[in-house]
């Protein structure tokens, strides 16, 4: 009996030894920095001074009274409202049309996926050239059909739409591939059964078979795209730097400004904690929905 107990103890010690490296890495890379950010958000630490002290929730109180914070949230919301529906519907539509094709299917798949493989920071410069208010080719085309010129990146009313367009270009291929994978997993016999049962109209077929079967994929695409929308940073940093008149100052760019331009690390940390909270909510929705779908 005691020999068995010793064996059990030795085995569990061995088990802990095996998981220890993974646990250490997770602590070091994920948990540690998160705790550090939360702690930093409770201080008035700046990059230009060694002196700091605990300020409690002052940073958070400041945040909710900050006009720039409100502006950044509003910009992010407008951007997401343009970006999200398109980032969902366009790839879904493309996936369904491409999946039905017999010829050129892989050609279209590669074509739409290409932007995903490119470096967005580099491509952003190409987009800035295309969208230039004077020499940009987009304005030349618009001019040909009698519209414009549009100041894509310089007009406060347009800039968020332009940024959403660039992000869409970069994400459509990725979401499309996710939807194609979801569509491929639907058994052919379900469509056969639907036709036998009389659901041969495309609308019925979509509503009764395709859409319900795609539900888990849809949740995944919606949530990851929402996180992507909230994480918008690189194109803003390269193309507009939050201009004109703070019209493209989105949440993550504001955090960057506070931390690395104004050196208010404590305040930036508080913004990061808020950001973390939002992402956490999205991830929670995803996990709960995925669990429900699995059942």
């Amino acid at each position, binding site marked *: 009996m005691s020999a068995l107990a010793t064996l059990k103890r030795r085995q569990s010690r061995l088990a802990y030894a095996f998981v220890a490296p993974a646990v250490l890495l997770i602590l070091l890379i994920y948990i540690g920095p998160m705790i550090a950010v939360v702690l930093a958000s409770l201080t008035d630490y700046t990059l230009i001074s060694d002196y700091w002290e605990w300020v409690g929730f002052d940073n958070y109180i400041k945040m909710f009274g900050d006009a720039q914070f409100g502006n950044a949230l509003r910009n992010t919301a407008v951007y997401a409202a343009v970006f999200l529906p398109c980032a969902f519907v366009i790839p879904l539509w493309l996936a369904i049309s491409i999946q039905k094709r017999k010829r050129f299917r892989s050609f279209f798949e590669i074509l739409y996926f290409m932007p995903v493989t490119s470096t967005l920071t580099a491509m952003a410069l190409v987009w800035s050239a295309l969208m230039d208010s004077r020499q940009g080719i987009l304005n030349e085309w618009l001019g040909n059909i009698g519209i414009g010129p549009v100041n894509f990146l310089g007009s406060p009313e347009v800039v968020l739409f332009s940024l959403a367009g660039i992000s869409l270009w970069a994400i459509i291929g990725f979401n499309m591939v996710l939807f194609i994978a979801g569509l491929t997993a639907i058994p052919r016999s379900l469509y056969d059964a*639907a*036709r036998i049962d009389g659901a041969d109209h495309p609308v019925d077929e979509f509503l009764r078979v395709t859409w319900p079967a795609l539900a888990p994929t849809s949740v995944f695409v919606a949530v990851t795209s929402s996180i992507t929308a909230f994480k918008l940073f690189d194109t803003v940093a390269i193309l507009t730097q939050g201009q004109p008149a703070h019209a493209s100052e989105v949440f993550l760019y504001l955090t960057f400004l506070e931390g690395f331009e104004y050196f208010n690390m404590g305040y930036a940390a508080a913004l990061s904690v808020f950001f973390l909270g939002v992402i956490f909510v999205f991830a929670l929705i995803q996990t709960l929905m995925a669990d429900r779908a699995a059942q």
Partner: protein
Amino acid sequence: MARLTLTDIKKSFGETQVLKGISLDVQDGEFLSLVGASGCGKSTLLRIISGLEAADSGRIEIDGVAVDQATPKARNVALVFQDYALYPHMSVAQNMAMPLVMGRLPMRARLPGAKWLTPGHAQTRRDIAAKVQQVAEQLRIAHLLDRRPAALSGGQRQRVALGRALVRDPSLFLMDEPLSNLDAKLRVEVRREIVELHRKSGLTFVYVTHDQVEAMTMSDRVALLQEGHLLQVGPPGTLYGDPASVDVARFIGSPEINLLPVRAAGQGLQLAGQVLPVASGQPAGRDMMLGIRPEAMRLAGTDGAGGPAFELEVLRHGVEDLGGELVVHGALAHAPDMTLRLRVQKGPDAAVPLHLPERFTAEVPMAALLLFGADGQRVALGQGAAAPVEVPA
């Protein structure tokens, strides 16, 4: 209730011709099995009958009306799929109601949320629910109506698939290997239930299977397909006892029929140095195949039906004890490369092991012989048997 007529149905996928001209008549209320090895084209034929697939040429008629161009919906056929193809996101009740919802409600009443927006169809909805309830009770799945397919066992899913097919009162009831995903015991049970369902409903059934036992036990008639051709269509007994060709004889029956190469000799058939007293009526020297069903042979000395018979010396290789009977694997004593299978009844006391010597004599009644020509077609046996002649080896 419908009569199905197929005329010269052909179908190719790319270079491969899957169906090479199938003509078939299924009577009103008949249970017809399409049986054949995998890849013989039986499932394709079923899909063509259902309208899921279009034939390259040929005519399909239901009750004398050509339906070649009609959609599955217009043909009003029901199809039970091998994997059941239940909609995983719908409850059992919704699954079963699907054909009725599609058939009786207009598009605007089928859209999401239409239940509250189009109150005019409440009566239709109640009718559909009542019909589903009635069929579910008939199939004893009424207590499962609220569940999702994922929460059902294989047998229950099978019933739901049958229910979904039954609610619409189809003209044709088509089934594509519906039992192949069930375990052996359940398969026998559901087999009986489907036969019962056919008897009660009086519908025309077309049943696809690769399992000849299913085809034999369930159908009024069996259609045997091989490589896109119909080999023979007839009642199960006819295919078994009176096969048109060696391929039919080989496919139908388990264990497989014994086929021995023989050559017509003056007095009878020469089988590896032994001349069998079987008058073939064929010119001497012609090569043929002699078919003997495993259960047609009996051990010499045991009681059996009378009539003329001849004897074969058999070397025992192995014995499978099936409880009530034995399957004996062996070979001809004087031609060990010719293997034989025998099915031997054990007699009244199955617990007593039947002793079978290493070398024994099997008796083959003349009446049980099937003779096939070199081309595989059946050859009628001549009348009158000569006395056995021993030929020195």
